[in-house]
């Protein structure tokens, strides 16, 4: 297992250390690359915590060969218009995680005021309000609660924001879209 980790970290080292030399766009200091080991550890312990937490309705797991790319799943909370629906997310962690937030996107279309048509999410903690104290679990919980409590004042999806006031109609649209999406999933 130890060798496994090393290998993995080497891989990711290569992957992550390569861009700085080529692209000067994001000049990373060299110590950061060495720190990949700790990023890895952090992600691993987050995974462990997430697995052990047993929170219902949220889940995520790294893709087969890359612990920096996760797939997540969120179920709509009870008593919201999203009840009974399920959304797939992708989480991609930067190399300087947790100092920078991960990029989170909806993979399944989500009819929501703060989610645009390609799945980008407008959530403060994923942008300026990010703190290294957050982890995968809190991100997922935040997104889950965002579903039920959108910020309609600065919408990405104006149609959804406009419809939000009519919860009944909104529910219909959500269910319809979800059913429509289902075969793909």
């Amino acid at each position, binding site marked *: *297992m130890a060798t496994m*980790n090393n290998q993995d970290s080497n891989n990711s080292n290569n992957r992550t250390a390569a861009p700085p030399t080529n692209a000067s766009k994001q000049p990373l200091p060299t110590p950061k690359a060495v720190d990949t080991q700790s990023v890895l550890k952090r992600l*691993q*312990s987050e*995974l462990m915590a*997430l697995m052990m937490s047993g929170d219902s309705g949220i889940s995520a*797991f790294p893709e*087969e060969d890359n612990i920096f790319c996760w797939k997540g*799943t969120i179920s709509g909370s009870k008593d919201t218009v999203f009840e009974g629906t399920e959304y797939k997310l992708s989480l991609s962690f930067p190399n300087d995680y947790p100092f920078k937030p991960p990029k989170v996107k909806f993979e399944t279309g989500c009819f929501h005021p703060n989610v645009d048509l390609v799945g980008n999410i407008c959530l403060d903690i994923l942008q300026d309000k990010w703190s290294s104290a957050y982890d995968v679990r809190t991100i997922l919980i935040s997104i889950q609660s965002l579903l039920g409590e959108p910020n309609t004042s600065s919408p990405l999806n104006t149609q959804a924001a406009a419809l939000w006031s009519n919860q009944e109609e909104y529910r219909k649209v959500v269910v319809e879209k979800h059913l429509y999406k289902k075969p793909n999933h």
Partner: protein
Amino acid sequence: MTADALSSVCNLGVLDSLSEASISEILESWNSFCIITETIVKGDDTDLSSYYSKFQSHVSSLCKYGLRDLVEEHFLLSLQETLEKHSAPKFWKNFDANSNGIDLETNDKDMQEDVVELLLCKALEEISLEKQYQEKCLLMLVNSLQICQDYPSDVENVLFSKYQLIVSSVLMTTLPRQFPEVLHWYFKGRLEELSTIMAGDYEENNESQDKNDMENNRYGKMDIDGSFDQKKKLEDKLVRNIGMVVHNLRNLGFTSMTEDAYASAIFLLLKAKVYDLAGDDYRSTVLESIKGWIQAVPLQFLHALLDYLGDSKIYLSPSSTKSPLASNPSSCYPGTSKPSEGIIRWQLRLEYFAYETLQDLRIAKLFEIIVDYPDSAPAIEDLKQCLEYTGQHSKLVDSFISALRYRLLTAGASTNDILHQYVSTIKALRTIDPAGVFLEAVGEPIREYLRGRKDTIKCIVTMLTDGSGGNNNGPGNNGDSLLEEINRDEENQENTGLDDDINTDDKQAWIDVQRYVYAIEENNNIPGARIKILPALGNQTQGLPRGREDSRFHKNSVVKRAQARAVPGWVTPWEVLVPGCQKQTISCWEPDPVEADPQKGSRYRRKVDVLGMIVGIIGSKDQLVNEYRVMLAEKLLNKTDYDIDTEIRTLELLKIHFGENSMQKCEIMLNDLIGSKRINTNVKATINQLSKTGAESREHETPFDIINATIISSNFWPPIQDEDVNIPEPMDKLLNDYAKRFHEIKTPRKLLWKKNLGTVKLELEFEDRTLQFTVTPVHASIIMKFQDQTSWSCKNLADAIGVPVDTLQRRINFWISKGIVSESSSNDPNDHLYTLVDSISDGGKTVISNEELVADDDSERSVASVEDQLRKEMTVYEKFITGMLKNFGSMALDRIHNSLKMFCSDPTYDKSLQQLQCFLSWLVAEEKLEIRDDTYFLKK
């Protein structure tokens, strides 16, 4: 002029020179020649001589004019005509008339055979006579021709071979369909008759050889001599008859048909004999007796027949005396050596056929043969020899695999049976196929199947280590574990490979020598084994050191001797030392069969490794070792004394095969026991000393003699089931004192009691009886509670003992079943009342009964089973598995495996793919997961 005409026969001009007179002479001679030819061809012997002079003059006059060819042709044509018109139909008519009689459905075989025989003989005789007559006629022509001109000397041969050809072709063209069958019937009947005569002979000879008793022998000899002559005569007569028939048939040109007929008859007979001898008895080898029979019966017959034919050869052209193996050109070579050569070929042919028949017979029954393998070794040996001849190993593999699938690898067969059959198969096929190539093919389906069974590992471990689990069908193997057996086999093999296998490695040498020591001991009771066991080794009853110190001592002493093996001079003494050991013939180099993968053909594959093949079922020895560890723990924890000799021996054997490293934990467990014994004595001795010298205040009613502790290093033991139980106060105090003393002696180590483990021997005294039991501490605690209070409610009792109610109810059943405690319902419907039964009302069982605890074993295991352990360890991963399946939908086994390896680090994922599969199938069984097309889903 005439001279001119003669000199130019082929000259057409000669026709002009022919005079009227000569033409009329030719015509006259021709007409007379034709008439005479017709007469003599249809006539008989008397005519022949009377016509001879006339015939001769006509022939010579015709020849004078160069018409010899015409004469010959006409004569042969008329002979042919007679044959076609007269002889052949007459000959075949015999069989036509009989065609209804030759009905295979006829029940009365003897009758039919007799009819066939008579008819055939008669018909053959008739036609032979006719043929002889015609030959005489032909001879007349030949003589006439020879007289009139100096013809080439081979004219006789040419004419006769032409005639022979005519006879054959006439008969062949008119051959009725059933004739070959008639021949077949004839030879079959004759041969059977002959074989009964000869076989009787053969057996009697055998018997008389066996008899050592002089008197018997004398009488027997006389008897045999008396009947022998008679039989000889009968036999000769019969052979002569058959020879006659064969001869006549050959004369008529039926050579190959005849040979076919009697060959098939012989083969039929041989086949029947093989079936008869081989039968369903696998305890004796039959190959030799079959060979003996071939020598005694069919070959004798063939010998006589060929001899007879050889003597009576008259007009045999080379082609008509084809040897049985006609393809061999040398067989056509005429000469005196031919009969014996023919006989040898026949012998080879018959033996091959016998081998093949026996082989097919044995292969078809191979499953049964292997079922009673050690007993059926002779049959296996036969089969081996047969296969060496025929080389049809693949037949064996195919047939056996299908038999296995059909009969063994079914749900109804117990894992133990399958394993035993597997081991027997290995042992049996090892003889047939030392390289183990076919074994590999045959073993694979069994292994594949066993892998799917849950109790396979457990059964294997039991079979390997437990005496009763081994194959105790074999003589002298009673109670021996498979491991012992394997070891013994190997040491026998080692003995033969002594010369080329000098090993300087100490450890290996020790192992080798150890094997010799066993070998010597095992052969000790063989009569005639003149062995003096080396004193250092001889005093061991089991050949195994009792303690660790002992083992080191032996190791040193033995290794020295073992190293001496490297000195050439020592090699022989070692062999001499073990005279009782089964000497195996040094096997010559055998190449792998063509099917073998050359990659695998290493030196070690030469010896089929039974253990290796068994471990191969599971795939890794670690699982096997782990299972053994659990079983060993269970066994050790239930021991009341510290006697672990058998366990040490088993462990040593396992170490030989699995290596020291893998058995390390087990060794520590055994050492714990040895250490426990020492510490136990030490603790008790010092405590007793203290109590004697110092404080008298110590309670003497609970002396330390009654307690024996097993001190284990729990890190190296399999997880032990923990269960809290309040043991009776005095006992608890005793344990605490013990622990304190231990701490004093072995500071800083402390004892941590596992109070639920161990055994308690107790005696229950009632007014009218005394009962002894050996029970678990929980049972003992329960019954002790009734000492002060004869009636307990279920809840109260459970509280007092400190176990859950359901555990109590399960455990107390033991006492209820013994009739010591009775159960009754109390006022509270949720509670039961247990009352001590003070005396037995029926008064039947007043005798002291020694009861051994055999109660529900499974629920009272002190050690968690391997499955449970795995289960427990794997539950951590369950969340991971659900997590990944939740996010990725469906995943194949290896992807799950890889993901766990990759991301699960806190309890490092160290399970094998098989273990994961096992665990996943549990989850499937619990309806948490689903499996479809080899991928796993979350159950929705």
